[in-house]
């Protein structure tokens, strides 16, 4: 199981104040194949001279990673992997205040809560390396392709938690996570079985 260390600090490289948290769970059910479940919550807030916006919601991804590294011994769990994900989000947004200035005066207004759904696909590459016994650090680089989201007239969906800006059909992202390996050794069991068959 892992926790993404980059999610709380996303506002350092994105517009607005974006933050969140994400956890992941994976298990080597077959040698080098890791089914994965990731889930998180994200918030984005924009506050400019013209608008005050909040978008927030939860997201989940399910998928699988394939490890390209050959284990040098039975306890070697460092991995270099390629993965695929299906992601979806249930979110809401609101515009607390907007302002339009003109010669005829200032127009103020707001839009209440709007709920929406979005889903997308991801492909990724990444590594995980053991730093202490059963504790791992790893990063992924991800390409995300939007499939669809709820269409709304005004304002349109701006932010999809777990994906990024809704207006973009493709986004890039990276994660840097800390993992803890629960010491259930499925690999060991599989290796033993293989050894017996060879003999």
């Amino acid at each position: 199981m892992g926790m993404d260390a980059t999610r709380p600090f996303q506002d350092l490289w994105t517009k607005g104040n974006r933050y969140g948290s994400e956890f992941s769970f994976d298990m080597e059910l077959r040698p080098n194949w890791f089914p994965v479940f990731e889930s998180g919550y994200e918030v984005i807030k924009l506050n400019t001279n013209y608008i005050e916006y909040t978008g927030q919601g939860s997201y989940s991804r399910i998928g699988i990673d394939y490890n390209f590294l050959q284990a040098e011994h039975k306890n070697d769990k460092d991995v270099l992997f390629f993965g695929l994900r299906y992601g979806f989000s249930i979110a809401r947004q609101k515009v607390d205040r907007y302002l339009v200035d003109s010669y005829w005066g200032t127009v103020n207004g707001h839009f209440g809560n709007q709920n929406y759904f979005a889903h997308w696909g991801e492909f990724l590459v990444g590594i995980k390396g053991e730093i202490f016994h059963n504790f791992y650090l790893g990063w992924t680089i991800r390409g995300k392709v939007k499939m669809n989201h709820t269409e709304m007239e005004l304002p349109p969906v701006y932010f999809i938690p777990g994906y990024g800006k809704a207006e973009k059909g493709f986004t890039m992202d990276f994660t840097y996570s800390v993992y803890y390996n629960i010491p259930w050794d499925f690999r060991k069991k599989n290796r033993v079985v293989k050894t017996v068959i060879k003999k």
Partner: protein
Amino acid sequence: MKRFLYLICILIAASGCKEVFEAPPQSFLKVSFLNSSTKATISPKVSVLGVGLENMWVKDSVLKEILLPLSVNDATSYLISLDAKNDTITFIHETIQKYASMESGFYFEYKLQSIDFTNNRIDSILITDSLVTKKWNENIKLYVHPLPSGNN
């Protein structure tokens, strides 16, 4: 771990110049001035004041065309002075709210439905494009009676 700290430092440095938000666009009704007899473009001395407002939009400027902002109400009226002869123009329009971006917010576009005006200096008005958008295309041709001196 050291490389990760370097990455964080770079991102913090980059974040210092990220919060740049543009103003939303504005839609203007574009008016061209023409001589009603010769149909040629003219450049009268123009002053414009929104009816009910105190600040002039344009004051004593020699122009062959002018951009006018419309109000969010269904009608927008201007007092317009062309070479010191005053007229009133009222634009009847539909107002449509538009989304610019979530950083810039919203703006308004308009659809002209009709125009009422007085005839002191204005001869007639032709609507060439009823959609008043952020692209500032010509929307109306304003035909002006020629001055007695024949300057236009």
